[in-house]
């Protein structure tokens, strides 16, 4: 057993000794950090003049929301919101540029967003047209909207029924609190996931293919452990490396975001961020689930990289293919018209990284079993990895 | 025809690879002998214009090494060269032909002729990827004479060739040496012994000996001894003299060594050969350190 861990250590040294890999890691960490606090840099301009720095703006919003925290989103709060927005005069430009908005309406901007979504309004002026009855039945109206969304999809009746069931489990009324840190985290993690995928491609591409180009393969394959332990060690290194990098960059994102935006809000419902989500999950639960999704998506990426590395002649080709496979799906828009294509498309590792896989309205009926998209994605990632790894093993072992 | 090398020097930050070498080469075959790291390859590279000297000049019939006209008269076989992976031997010869200024027609003719000369005709259309080391080496020799050069620089040309191929090569070089300046470096003393009209011994960046075989052998004429002694005496002799050959034989040790005077009673003088000179010069440092 000792020799196995010794071999793993060698593989890690090979990865970490390369200057290009260290540079890649450092760049990715830098980009992650920069991207987390990017929205806080610079200023917010009203009519060409700097109104406030983005950082101050975030802090101001945070204070507003904190002052309203630990209250329920009730009809009173909704009425307050509507009243605040009624102060805004009709204007040609952006309504958020008006002094009345800044003075009265801004503290309620998140509630306003929920109202717009729940009542399916398009314009801020329509908010004043809501009747008192409508305001009082906010949660019912929201639920109707959600059910309408479910109905409008092309899901089968079984799937729709399941989604409906789930949506009914959402706990109401919503406890309001500041969740800026989590919201920023959710926005950021897609970028982080892509960067993790990028690091993995670069660092894992030479795992097998590097031995081919360095002409070490015949030396290794003829050694005692060359046809078994060495290969196991390489596969283990690939998987564990992807896990470590995923954890590391997620932590960097989490800590950076929370340090600037604030740590609280873990227990609040996800509906504060996505009002029409059908899932009865808290922010913390969604964050955890998101991390798991990204983790396994990247494990699958690592497996793909290792498979390519064992089959192809040089790490260069592996990197090119992995880059294309990573970038191309980002540009292809996913249409929800033909659902099975949509769900299939989401099984590409890069598309696994979308938050909507967790929060969206879909249920999937798979041969009688009705499951959530993220459950299918996770299962697929795990099963594909387990299926593909032996091929990587065999490719290297029988390499000529 | 004269290749003049005048106080050629190549210095790196902390090492002088070639130290003010001056040579005048005419038609004929020159053998450059030296240990690894003696500066042979650096010297040859400077003669080919592949390295720029720190100081000194190289001129052929008055043309400086940096000019295109010089390179036009040059054929070079490096110690280690690669190939574009998709090329066959024939493609390779055509490519080198175009680089050397041959027309396509000329290149085709020459390629066929030379590939036949180095016995690669039947594999000419196979990819170089599939070639053995010896075949690659023969291809390298073929491309070096593609443009009928007046100067031929060959760095370790017989590496990887089997004995039969080496004999063929020696004959080829002898023929070429009649109307060309051929400078070849090698570790294989027998290559040089039979075909070089002049031998250059290089050590630590300098030419320490230059001359025909007879001339340079006089340095150790009468100084090469052979004897068979017991192991203890052998150990002492090994520590004291430059040893050319050691062989264990039935409880005794057979030694061939170089000494000013007979090293032991049973020692017998033997005719010196070039290999003795080579080992005498280039093992010196090794033996002393042991």
């Amino acid at each position: 057993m000792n020799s196995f861990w010794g071999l793993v250590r060698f593989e890690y040294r090979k990865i970490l000794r390369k200057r290009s890999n260290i540079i890649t890691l450092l760049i990715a960490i830098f980009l992650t950090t920069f991207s987390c606090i990017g929205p806080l840099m610079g200023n917010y301009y009203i009519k060409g003049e700097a109104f406030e720095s983005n950082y101050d703006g975030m802090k101001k919003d945070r204070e507003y929301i904190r002052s309203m925290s630990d209250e329920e989103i009730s009809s009173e709060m909704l009425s307050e919101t509507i009243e605040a927005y009624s102060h805004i005069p009709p204007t040609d430009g952006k309504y958020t540029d008006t002094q009345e908005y800044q003075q009265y309406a801004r503290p309620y901007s998140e509630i306003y967003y929920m109202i717009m979504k729940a009542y399916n309004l398009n314009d801020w002026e329509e908010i004043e047209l809501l009747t008192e009855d409508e305001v009082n039945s906010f949660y019912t109206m929201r639920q109707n909207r959600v059910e309408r969304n479910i109905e409008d999809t092309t899901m089968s009746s079984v799937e729709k029924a399941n989604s409906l069931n789930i949506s009914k489990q959402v706990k109401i009324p919503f406890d309001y609190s500041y969740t800026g840190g989590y919201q920023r985290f959710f926005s950021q993690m897609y970028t982080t996931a892509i960067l993790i995928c990028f690091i993995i491609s670069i660092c894992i591409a030479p795992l097998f293919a590097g031995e081919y180009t360095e002409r070490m393969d015949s030396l290794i394959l003829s050694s005692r452990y060359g046809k078994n332990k060495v290969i196991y060690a390489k596969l283990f290194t690939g998987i564990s490396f992807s896990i470590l990098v995923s954890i590391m960059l997620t932590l960097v994102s989490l800590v950076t975001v929370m340090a600037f935006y604030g740590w609280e809000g873990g227990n609040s419902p996800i509906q504060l961020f996505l009002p029409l989500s059908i899932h009865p999950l808290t922010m913390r639960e969604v964050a955890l689930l998101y991390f798991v999704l990204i983790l396994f998506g990247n494990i699958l990426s690592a497996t793909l990289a290792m498979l390519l590395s064992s089959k192809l002649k040089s790490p260069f080709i592996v990197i090119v293919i992995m880059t294309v496979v990573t970038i191309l799906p980002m540009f292809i828009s996913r249409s929800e018209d033909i659902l099975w294509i949509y769900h299939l498309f989401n099984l590409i590792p890069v598309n696994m990284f979308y938050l909507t896989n967790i929060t969206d309205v879909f249920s999937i009926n798979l041969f009688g079993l009705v499951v959530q998209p993220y459950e299918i994605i996770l299962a697929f990632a795990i099963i594909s990895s387990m299926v593909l790894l032996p091929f990587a093993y065999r490719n290297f072992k029988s390499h000529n | 025809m004269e290749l003049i090398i005048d106080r050629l020097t190549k210095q790196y930050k902390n090492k002088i690879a070639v130290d003010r070498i001056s040579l005048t080469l005419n038609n004929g075959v020159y053998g450059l002998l030296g240990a690894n790291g003696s500066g042979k390859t650096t010297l040859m590279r400077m003669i080919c214009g592949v390295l720029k000297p720190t100081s000194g000049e190289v001129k052929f019939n008055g043309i400086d090494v940096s000019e295109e006209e010089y390179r036009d008269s040059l054929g070079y076989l490096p110690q280690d060269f690669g190939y574009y992976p998709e090329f066959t031997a024939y493609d390779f010869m055509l490519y080198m032909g175009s680089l050397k200024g041959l027309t396509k027609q000329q290149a085709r003719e020459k390629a066929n002729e030379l590939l036949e000369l180095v016995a690669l005709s039947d594999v000419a259309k196979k990819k170089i990827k599939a070639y053995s080391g010896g075949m690659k080496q023969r291809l390298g020799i073929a491309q070096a004479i593609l443009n009928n050069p007046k100067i031929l620089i060959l760095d370790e040309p017989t590496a990887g060739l089997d004995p039969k191929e080496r004999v063929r090569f020696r004959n080829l070089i002898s023929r070429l040496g009649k109307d060309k300046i051929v400078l070849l470096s090698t570790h294989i003393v027998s290559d040089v012994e039979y075909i070089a009209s002049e031998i250059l011994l290089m050590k630590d960046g300098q030419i320490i000996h230059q001359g025909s075989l007879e001339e340079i052998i006089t340095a150790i004429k009468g100084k090469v001894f052979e004897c068979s002694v017991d192991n203890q005496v052998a150990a002492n002799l090994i520590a004291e003299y430059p040893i050319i050959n050691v062989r264990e034989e039935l409880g005794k040790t057979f030694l061939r060594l170089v000494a000013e005077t007979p090293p032991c009673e049973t020692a017998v003088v033997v005719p010196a050969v070039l290999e003795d000179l080579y080992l005498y010069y280039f093992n010196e440092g090794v033996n002393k350190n042991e």
Partner: protein
Amino acid sequence: MSNNLKRELKSAFEAPIPTRKSSFLSQFNYPRASRFDFFKRQVGYIRKRVWILSGFLFIGTLLGLYCYKVSTSFVWMVSSVLPFISLVSMNEIVRSTTYNMDELEMSCKHNFLEISLIRIGLLGIGNVLVLIGILFLFVGKTDFGFFRLGLYLTTPYLLNCYGSLFAINRLKSREITYVCGSVTAFVSTLNALFTMQINIIYTERYWVFWIATFIALAVLSAIEAVKLIKKTGELQWSL
């Protein structure tokens, strides 16, 4: 001597085989290939993959813009593919070093310097033509003006050029293709992320940033390219 006699003599005796034939012939200067011939041959030796990829990109853009209705994300897709054109071009330029042919080529009449200049010139012109061609295809199809679109498309390409040249000038031949591949992966991924996530950078407010980056990268790339050309005069890793 009568012709009859000559004929008889010829058939009666065998003529001696000419000796010193090759040394006699080598006295003459046989016709040499011109520099232009060499140039033409070198064009043929540039691997087809560069032209094929450029062609694909151009035709793909043509089809995408004129035959199918594509969204504005098409611009970003093209800007993420352009670094790959830079990658294959760079690989072509350093082919001699990668495959260890540089020493041999340096010793030839048309030496490594000439070959490199031809490669850089041809591929540079080829790339510029593709860029301009694609730009013209985009004219009128997006919200961006010609000039701005040019900046958005060529800046990632230039970043890739600079990164690759920087690596090429400082690394040993064995690692070059891998590192250039990594540079392209980085530029392409970064570009895709920028276009998808940080749309704000493409608004008019930041155009100064784009111009400054474009000029900086162009200058830096040119400096590195000159360094590369200077290095073709001599073997770099000798000891």
